[in-house]
């Protein structure tokens, strides 16, 4: 990989050991991907924030690094393993909370904004089209590439952090225009409703793997993009998709090598596949990825005037910033459950609290059985809200 004089200097350790290590990581990852050089980025989204996922080793790594590491571009943080204020209310134990707070302090010391969300694009980290960024968090990566038109590969926690420290990332993969063309067309043969988008993404991700799909016959709203993208990244390894509402829009893409279609029947089969329980869940969860303002409004509108059923817990997972923007909505939602800020059903230690969870997210349904040892009730958002209210 070609390095500038300034980059060589950093790699030679002239700007300190921490920056040398960050540069060494970027150079190695660039070499592996045959990148020609590094490219400046406008922002980073750093993953590896929950104590549950990174454990003691991660805490040690971050504390060591935070002694002198500072980020040099706008950097936001993925969800934690708990609500940093209301963790007791969620049932998190003291030991976990202490380790979690050490992680949070380390990131704070490095200058990372403690947004604690998988939806950085709702809380001020919203790059423009064609801007280079280095984001971890697969659902945010797919949103940035596909909806915002910004450019990022799917970074790991340490590589996003190294990019944030140096302010650059290897110029390869989805950073480069010619690698952003769809190769496979997926024709959606029906009009999907809001509740279909997540499971549609699951079905498409399974079929296309790592390829960039062109999804035709859909015209998603932003929340629907959030749902379909997160699901594709979880069931496959999709980091980007394109979409077209009709044949005319479709004709601008001339790189398609294969085509297949998705019918409603496949969605129903996938729903059954993801559903591993039909008995009463311990916790009903919403907000994977974290809820948007418009979703908060819809949920509050639906619940308004209904009565809570108190026989199980409910978590509404949302970033602290969005929750603060919705005081009226959270007031309604609190009658029915907990506003779980900074965290979610997958990265919180939910396995210590519950053995079955209800969700409307196919991303959550993919990870809950493996990472959290949970049985999953997979239901539509409306069904979940009817479950918790009357």
């Amino acid at each position: 990989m070609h390095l500038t004089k300034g980059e060589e200097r950093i790699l030679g350790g002239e700007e300190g050991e921490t920056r040398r290590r960050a540069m060494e990581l970027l150079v190695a990852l660039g070499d592996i991907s045959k990148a020609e050089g590094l490219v400046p980025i406008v922002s980073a989204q750093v993953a590896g924030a929950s104590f549950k996922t990174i454990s003691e080793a991660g805490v040690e790594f971050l504390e060591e690094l935070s002694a002198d590491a500072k980020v040099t571009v706008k950097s936001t943080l993925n969800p934690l393993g708990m609500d940093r204020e209301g963790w007791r209310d969620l049932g998190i134990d003291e030991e976990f909370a202490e380790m979690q707070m050490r992680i949070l302090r380390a990131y704070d010391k490095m200058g990372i904004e403690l947004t604690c969300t998988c939806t950085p694009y709702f809380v001020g980290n919203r790059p423009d089209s064609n801007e280079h960024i280095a984001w971890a968090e697969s659902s945010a990566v797919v949103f940035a590439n596909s909806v915002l038109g910004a450019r990022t590969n799917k970074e790991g926690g340490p590589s996003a952090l190294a990019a944030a420290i140096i302010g650059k990332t290897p110029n390869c993969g989805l950073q480069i225009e010619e690698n952003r063309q769809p190769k496979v067309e997926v024709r959606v043969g029906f009009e999907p409703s809001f509740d279909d988008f997540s499971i549609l993404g699951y079905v498409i991700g399974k079929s296309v793997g790592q390829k960039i799909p062109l999804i035709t016959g859909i015209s998603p709203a932003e929340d629907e993009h959030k749902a379909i993208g997160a699901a594709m990244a979880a069931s496959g390894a999709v980091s980007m998709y394109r979409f077209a509402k009709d044949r005319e829009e479709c004709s601008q893409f001339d790189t398609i090598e294969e085509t297949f279609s998705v019918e409603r029947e496949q969605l129903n089969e996938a729903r059954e596949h993801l559903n591993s329980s039909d008995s009463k869940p311990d916790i009903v969860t919403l907000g994977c990825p974290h809820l948007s303002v418009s979703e908060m409004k819809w949920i509050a509108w639906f619940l308004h005037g209904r009565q809570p059923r108190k026989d199980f817990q409910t978590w509404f997972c949302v970033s602290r910033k969005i929750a603060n923007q919705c005081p009226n909505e959270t007031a309604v939602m609190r009658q029915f459950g907990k506003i779980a800020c900074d965290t979610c059903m997958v990265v919180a230690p939910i396995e210590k609290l519950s053995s079955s969870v209800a969700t409307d997210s196919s991303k959550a349904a993919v990870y809950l059985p493996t990472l959290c040892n949970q049985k999953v009730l997979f239901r539509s958002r409306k069904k979940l809200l009817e479950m918790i209210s009357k």
Partner: protein
Amino acid sequence: MKLNGMGIGHGKSEGEVLQVERPISFLGGVEPKTGAILDRESGKLGESVADKILAFPHGKGSTVGSYVIYQLKKSGAAPAAIVNQKADPIIATGAIISEIPMLSEIPTEILWDGDKAVVNADDGYLDLPDVTENPVVTGILRKGDKILIMKRSNEVGSFQGRWAGISGGVLDDEKPEDAMVREIEEESGLGRESYRLSVTGSPIFARRDTRVWKVHPFLLDIIEGEISLDWEHDEFQWITVDDLGSYETVPRLKNVIDVLLKIDRAEKKRVCD
């Protein structure tokens, strides 16, 4: 023998090889405090990666695997070095944050458990001091859709009675392509004007005891001429690739042919495009 690869991170390590044939997920696949392998499909369940030259094809699974490698290092249970066929970001990240020397682009299947090995990530090579390298060529002659295989005689030094392509050792100071021309002339009687070179591929490695054969493969298309055997072979056959399974061949012959035909198809496609 010395093998060149891509150095990742920095540093130099020596140790004994532990080779895992399948991709490894460090998260869930290796115990972070002791280095014990937990993956039942690895074939090395319960063995420890600590202080080993750990060779495996590539990583898989969660990106949290990078932190598991770091935790191994902190616990004193990390491998002395990591050797991969193909580096992926999870393993490379783990190796760098843990300052473990790493090499990729190495045919890990020729590293055997217990081999003494030196890994140098700075200069990008692996040294196996107790293993010797024998460079050889294997040529596959093709006529239409058939390929030539020849049965090795009882007078040759190895693999008597087995079916092979045209093959032989590369002499000191000889280039593999010159060795190929020489061997074709000796074993089939065909001069350079009788065939054209269609495809060459990267070397393929085969190991037996402490010897590694570095096979330079060639695919050659016959233009004209008849085969005349020398003392090294008793008979020859023109067969389709599908029939290869019914012959007892030298090791890796199928592998060599598959690699060459795959490159051949890819090159033809590119020309047509």
